[in-house]
């Protein structure tokens, strides 16, 4: 039963981070935003959406915490989670959408001397996609937090040791998961967006020299590119890869902990926390070592196949 709920959490984490990455590409949030911000200063007037709310971790912490708080308040009034969680996520996404209007207006009007206009169709056309992608991510994160929270289904499974239930309430879990999903989406997904879309005319793998900064691709396959075109492209590879990263992190982390707890005995006389922690740590070290070796091999193979790169 615990493994089944863990699988649910992993699948939800996969979907959440997939949509989180696509939502951040929707408005060039986080790392690639510095290039979008720099482009008009280099004379490259563009039609991208400039969504510099804050880092992805913090903006998702905001949306998820509001969603979690609203869901918590509704749950405490006896409303069923099937209604409370989507309603809370809807409020969170609404606040996120309001926050997303501020930076596009503010940063583009701060580019006055570089003659960057505010395109109203860019502003209005991106708001609904931002809110909907954000809703998908936030509803999954709120559901994960509800499953794990003291009032959730995981805590109701009998026979588990007390240590398996965490003491964190729903809003705090949403906050932690929101920061985490934003951090993974920022570190993994942005690379695909930044190199493959903003700098698609530069050779792969050489890094971005300072002379290229701000010189982003502004034309799409047909016409002028907006951030919506980027999402359609990133949905094929960057988003799923980011979701897979987050899903695998949650999978490996929970799997090793659960195996350790099984080995250490769950309750009664067989309960041995030392064995549980030890087995979990050893399995974690093995997983880490396998991942490091695999990644080194992958990088070597890729460099041999696609290199040598300019400047190497």
């Amino acid at each position, binding site marked *: 039963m615990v493994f089944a709920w863990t699988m649910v959490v992993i699948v939800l984490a996969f979907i959440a981070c997939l949509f989180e990455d696509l939502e951040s590409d929707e408005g060039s949030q986080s790392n690639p935003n*510095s290039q979008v*911000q720099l482009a008009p*200063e280099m*004379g*490259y*007037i*563009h*039609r991208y959406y400039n969504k*510099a*709310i*804050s*880092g992805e971790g*913090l903006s998702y*912490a*905001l949306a998820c*915490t*509001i969603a*979690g*708080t609203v869901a*918590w*308040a509704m749950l*405490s009034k006896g409303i069923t989670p099937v209604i409370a969680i989507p309603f809370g996520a809807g409020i969170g996404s609404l*606040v996120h959408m*309001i*926050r997303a*209007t*501020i*930076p596009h*207006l*503010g*940063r*583009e*009007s*701060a*580019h*006055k*001397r*570089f*003659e*960057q*206009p*505010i*395109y*109203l*169709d860019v502003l209005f056309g991106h708001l609904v996609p931002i809110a909907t992608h954000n809703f998908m991510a936030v509803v999954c994160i709120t559901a994960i937090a509800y499953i794990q929270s003291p009032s959730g289904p995981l805590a109701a499974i009998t026979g588990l040791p007390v240590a398996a239930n965490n003491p*964190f*309430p*729903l*809003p*705090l*879990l*949403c*906050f932690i998961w929101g920061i985490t999903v934003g951090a993974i989406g920022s570190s993994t997904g942005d690379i695909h967006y930044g190199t493959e879309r903003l700098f698609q005319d530069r050779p792969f793998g050489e890094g971005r020299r300072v002379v290229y900064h701000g010189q982003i691709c*502004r034309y799409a396959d047909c016409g*002028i590119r907006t951030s919506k075109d980027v999402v359609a492209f990133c949905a094929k590879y960057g988003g799923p890869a980011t979701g897979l990263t987050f899903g695998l992190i949650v999978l490996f982390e929970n799997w090793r902990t659960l195996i350790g707890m099984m080995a250490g005995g769950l309750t009664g006389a067989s309960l041995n926390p030392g064995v549980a922690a030890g087995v979990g740590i050893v399995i974690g070290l093995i997983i880490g070592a396998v991942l490091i070796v695999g990644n080194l091999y992958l990088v070597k193979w890729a460099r041999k196949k696609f290199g040598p790169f300019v400047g190497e």
Partner: protein
Amino acid sequence: MGEEEKAEEKPEEKEKFTLHFPNENNLAIIAVIAGVIVSILPVLPAFVKGIGAILVILWGADSVRKTARYGLGTGVPSIGVLAMGYGIVGGVTGIVIGSVPALGGGGIVEPGVLVGVAAVGVVGYISGILANNEKFIGMKIPGLERGMAELGMAGALAVIIESSMIAGTWNAAVVIPEIIENGLIALIFILAAFGMLQPYNSCLGADERRGRTLLVSVEIGGLNCIILGVLASLIQGMAQGVPLIALGAITWVLFYSAYVRACLNEAHSVVGTGLIKTMR
């Protein structure tokens, strides 16, 4: 009480795009006076505390702008989170110390809470010295010491005021079960942090203007009042919550529309749609 109401109404009267916020020193003085009055008098109604919270967050946003203006760029959100990190430490310290009956805890005026605010101000000042001094990190950012002290104090005041907005008091016997164990402290953290970090992060650029940036902070303060008002009406009842929601809604509508109009007026041009300028 006079100060914060004056500062609250001053921008609303003019309403146009050129709001005259007080300069950095005056804004700090107004916000400190308002924040101190509101935090040592927990008997005040929630919407008065809401005005205090808006002013304190505005001060924090101004400090973030002051600190981050010297080329921090992507570090702007980190400064806001740092402020609220100080704020949680200082606020909880102040709440616990202020609840001691010997320091006025439980009375009408409860000045003990200011110990935490002052302590975190000193810690912030020391960390500013450590960051700026060449013997240690040597960042040499002008005014960093003052900025860090202000950020810590604004964060601590924001935590204290927002806690007492939700729970009706910041007494530790109430705040620990109602705010901290419920996890609402995470909401307080992120709402106040956004009021401080988002304005400058969202408006920075070559033609950034202080008056326009600070409008965003007041707007976020209004949004915070709406969300906190819903929670206050759950915990304290409608009489406290509904005026707070009304204050938040009015502030949000006024300042959001003022900000949007200011941006549209001050941009290079506003077009419905259009092609981009071809390369030079």
